[in-house]
């Protein structure tokens, strides 16, 4: 095995519990990273994937220690090396790219200086050579005009550019192995697609081996040659990317792939029940036993071993993998299509709404000058019918959360009007709103860690709206709380728990329960699934859909994830820089011809399929402010016509499928252009 860069043998890493019990985080990991190979490590949070990546650098987190096994880089065991020797390997031979590049770059040093530091540390080049190398590296990661870029500070770059700088720094020492820990997780869809494409290019260009750690199967599919699936600290599946993603033979991977919403197959994905066992709780048997559909008695009592299957070139840890070998399609037949009774009853009418974050100057206020600054969100017209799910889609900074906040009354609108139930105008000021309207519109937030008071029990959390709106007390209150909790599949058992004692999915269920306790007409969902693991995300989406069918609630669903939006929404509104680009029934918006921005977004979506490559149409630029006049998308539009786009606000056109597109290009022309590409 000459070509092996890193070999991991029987690695077990764990910690000692307070009672002195030894608990393993990683269990008997054995694998080999070959030269020039890109290996993707996938798993849900808590599966041990980051611990494994760190161990590959010879680093074990504080509190953890190596119980057994070794991690060989060529022939040196990294886990037994002295710090001094490790310093020579880290950066030079093995480099790491962290998740959040913005936080790992020093904010007060120029980009060029920081790369120079890495070069000084990891190479023996002279000053002039290093300067040349800096430009070379910045060029390699495709940053425009490297000389100017080197003079900038990290905060002057966008998230995608920062990530590129991090890649450049990692490449400074010409490493043989590159470890990437969720490198694209915090990025926008289009930026993510660009960064992944860059990583692919670098892997081919330099022949560096890469280990790509992610929870996102879509990203993994784009970069990896081989995929390792981890569950509860064990490798459960290890094989070539195609066979793993197209024909997963472990029930966990099978379920995981099923639970990912896809653009190509609308409707809600299947969800997996249960959650990953806590470290140290599984004594005997398969760690996936409790969630497995195929499980039988044998799985409960015996732990399966990692078995190598010759003709698939895959290792699998399952007794029953044979049952899955011939199942080819993983998704199509199981998808539940959503079926909502949308009444032609308007429940919310947003007309000509603009919102501005800019504060009027004190003097201007005195002189009664009209504020003519360019508002963050402008000219939003949306009607929402009863029982409908409307999705607002866009990248960060598109104003989707801003619109949500102003519907909830948390932000004042500058212009325009929001009408509830046909003719009741919602006041701009939260305090002036009728309590009945406040009850009717409830919010669910992105991160349940933030939206649930850490010092309240589940009972107190859910009791808040019940006491406020219905004045319930005592036994009646308790009865109602239990009733609401049962609706979200949490039992009485959870009443006395604190949020920190719940898993991510359970926390989000509590947040959903709190919103539904108010018996709302409209629920505003702000990225409700983006902080959750894939399998949990599917479960929460299914829950929301069921509750909607029971109560006839209207959802306004904000998300940056187009696949999730496709799965749950009836109608989609696409936003760029606070301006509407396109709106229509979701199945129509997701079809071409569409607004150039929708086209860019759709092209950048990553499918968990190595054969579907993202189409990169537009430049990866980040705009901070909407343009003063003209079309909002003029700065990035790949199909820009010319001056007309810069000077005139485009008109609304009715697209071929009944969706409204706001563009200067005629729908027929859009159709021609988009079909050619």
């Amino acid at each position, binding site marked *: 095995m000459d070509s092996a860069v890193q070999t991991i043998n029987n690695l077990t890493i764990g910690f000692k519990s307070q009672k002195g019990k030894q608990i393993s985080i990683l269990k008997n990991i054995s694998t080999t990273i070959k030269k020039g190979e890109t290996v993707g490590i996938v798993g849900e949070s808590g599966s041990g994937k980051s611990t494994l990546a760190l161990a590959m650098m010879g680093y074990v987190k504080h509190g953890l220690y190596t119980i057994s096994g070794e991690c060989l880089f060529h022939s040196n065991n990294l886990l037994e090396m002295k710090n001094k020797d490790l310093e020579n390997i880290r950066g030079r031979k093995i480099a790491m790219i962290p998740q959040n590049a913005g936080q790992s770059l020093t904010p007060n040093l120029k980009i060029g200086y920081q790369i120079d530091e890495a070069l000084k540390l990891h190479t023996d080049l002279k000053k002039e050579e290093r300067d040349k190398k800096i430009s070379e590296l910045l060029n390699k990661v495709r940053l425009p005009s490297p000389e100017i870029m080197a003079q900038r500070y990290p905060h002057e770059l966008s998230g995608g550019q920062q990530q590129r700088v991090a890649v450049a720094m990692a490449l400074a020492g010409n490493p043989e192995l590159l470890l990437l820990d969720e490198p694209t997780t915090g990025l926008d869809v289009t930026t993510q697609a660009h960064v992944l494409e860059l990583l692919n290019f670098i892997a081919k260009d330099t022949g560096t081996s890469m280990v790509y750690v992610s929870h996102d199967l879509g990203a993994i599919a784009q970069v990896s040659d081989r995929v390792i699936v981890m569950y509860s600290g064990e490798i459960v599946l290890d094989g070539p990317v195609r066979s793993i993603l197209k024909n997963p033979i472990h029930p966990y991977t099978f379920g995981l792939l099923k639970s990912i919403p896809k653009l190509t197959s609308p409707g809600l994905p299947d969800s997996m029940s249960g959650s990953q066992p806590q470290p140290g709780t599984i004594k005997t048997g398969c760690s996936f036993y409790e969630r497995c559909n195929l499980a039988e008695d044998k799985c409960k009592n015996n732990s399966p071993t990692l078995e190598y299957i010759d003709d698939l070139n895959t290792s699998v840890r399952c007794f029953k993998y044979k049952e899955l070998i011939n199942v080819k399609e993983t998704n199509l037949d199981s998808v539940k299509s959503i079926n909502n009774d949308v009444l032609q009853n308007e429940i919310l009418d947003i007309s000509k709404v603009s919102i501005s974050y800019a504060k009027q100057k004190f003097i201007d206020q005195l002189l009664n000058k009209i504020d003519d600054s360019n508002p963050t969100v402008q000219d939003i017209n949306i009607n929402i019918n009863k029982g409908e799910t409307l999705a607002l889609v866009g990248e960060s900074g598109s104003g989707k959360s801003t619109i949500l906040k102003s519907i*909830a*009354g*948390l932000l004042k609108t500058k212009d325009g009007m929001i009408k509830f139930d046909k003719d009741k105008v919602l006041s701009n000021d*939260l305090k002036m*709103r009728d*309590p009945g309207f*406040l*009850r009717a*519109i*409830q*919010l669910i*937030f*992105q*991160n349940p860690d*933030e*939206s*649930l*008071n*850490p*010092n*309240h*029990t589940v*009972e*107190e959390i859910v*009791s*808040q*709206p019940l006491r*406020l709106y219905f004045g319930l007390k*005592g*036994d009646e*209150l*308790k009865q109602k709380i239990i009733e609401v909790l049962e609706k979200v599949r949490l039992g009485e058992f959870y009443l*006395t728990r604190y949020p920190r004692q719940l898993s991510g999915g359970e926390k989000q269920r509590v947040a959903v329960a*709190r919103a539904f306790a*108010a018996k709302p007409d409209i629920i505003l969902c702000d990225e409700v699934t983006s902080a959750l693991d894939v399998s949990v995300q599917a479960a929460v989406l299914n829950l929301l859909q069921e509750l909607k069918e029971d109560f006839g609630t209207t959802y306004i669903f904000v998300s940056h994830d187009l696949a999730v939006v496709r799965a749950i929404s009836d109608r989609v509104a696409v936003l760029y820089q606070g301006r509407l680009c396109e709106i229509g029934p979701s199945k129509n918006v997701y079809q071409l011809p569409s607004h150039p921005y929708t086209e860019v977004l759709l092209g950048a979506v990553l499918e968990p399929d190595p054969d579907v490559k993202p189409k990169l149409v537009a430049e990866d630029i980040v705009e901070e402010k909407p343009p003063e006049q003209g079309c909002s998308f003029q700065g990035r539009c790949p199909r820009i016509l010319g001056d007309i786009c810069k000077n005139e606000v485009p008109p609304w056109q009715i697209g071929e499928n009944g969706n409204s597109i706001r563009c200067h290009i005629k729908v027929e022309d859009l159709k021609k252009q988009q079909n050619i590409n």
Partner: protein
Amino acid sequence: MTLEKEQKKNNLQKVYEVIKTMASKPSGLIGLSILLFHVILAITSPLYVPYDYKAIDPSLMLQAPSSEYWFGTDSLGRDVFTRTILGGRTALTVTFFGSLIALLWGGALGIFCGLVGGKIDDVVMRIIDAFLSIPWILAMLLIVSLLGTTTLVLIPALGFFYGKGIVRVARAATHDVIAKDFIVSARARGHSNLSIIWNEILPNVRDAIMVEGAMRWSWMLLGFSSLSFLGFGVSPPTPDWGLMISNARGLMSFAYWAVLAPIFGLSSLIIGINLTADAFAKALGIDRSTKAPV
């Protein structure tokens, strides 16, 4: 069981757990025992003092410690041991209630300012800053000389001056939670400000404010003794450590015992409170080492 009852049981359990954690480290155990010792002494000492604390006897002036007078006698022939074990009573009572007042008004104003923000917050905080810039001891002297040195003046005056710092701590702690989504969510539901403070903010800032209050207590004790030392605290012949140190300090070169005993009493109590407050902070998971005293 109703919500309220369960809540009560939960709180009691929490207090018990916090005390248990505090006592599990040597420094916390030492602090707690010193504090407990002083409190018990202050409550029970009148029952077993060997002599009358105000009995003046010129023939017994400045006796060295002996089996009869354990800590010797002072310049008026009074027993130092008697006066030392009685000397903490006023100080403890005044500062305990003083810091309670400081805690209440400082905490309430701080949370209020943190919540409402804007202009009101600006104005209140500038006033607090202005007060912080006045040397408290001068202001105290002014108040005490105008209104007298009774406990009814001292407690609120000390409580006021030591509460200013708590306003800032409470405001900062409120700012930490105010941006969290659960507050936004409560606002969007339409809860009143009072209900948001009581239900959502208070449980999250309570710990920080309580720890701050405990620290203020020890500083206030030192402040109160300084006032007594200057002659503006308790009036003679009431036994008080600050006053005792002040009276005996001129004779320190040949009657060290008359100074040493009250100094020991005062410093051990302050150390006790400090250690307890630190252990309290650690038990609640608050790191005091990163915060400079305001």
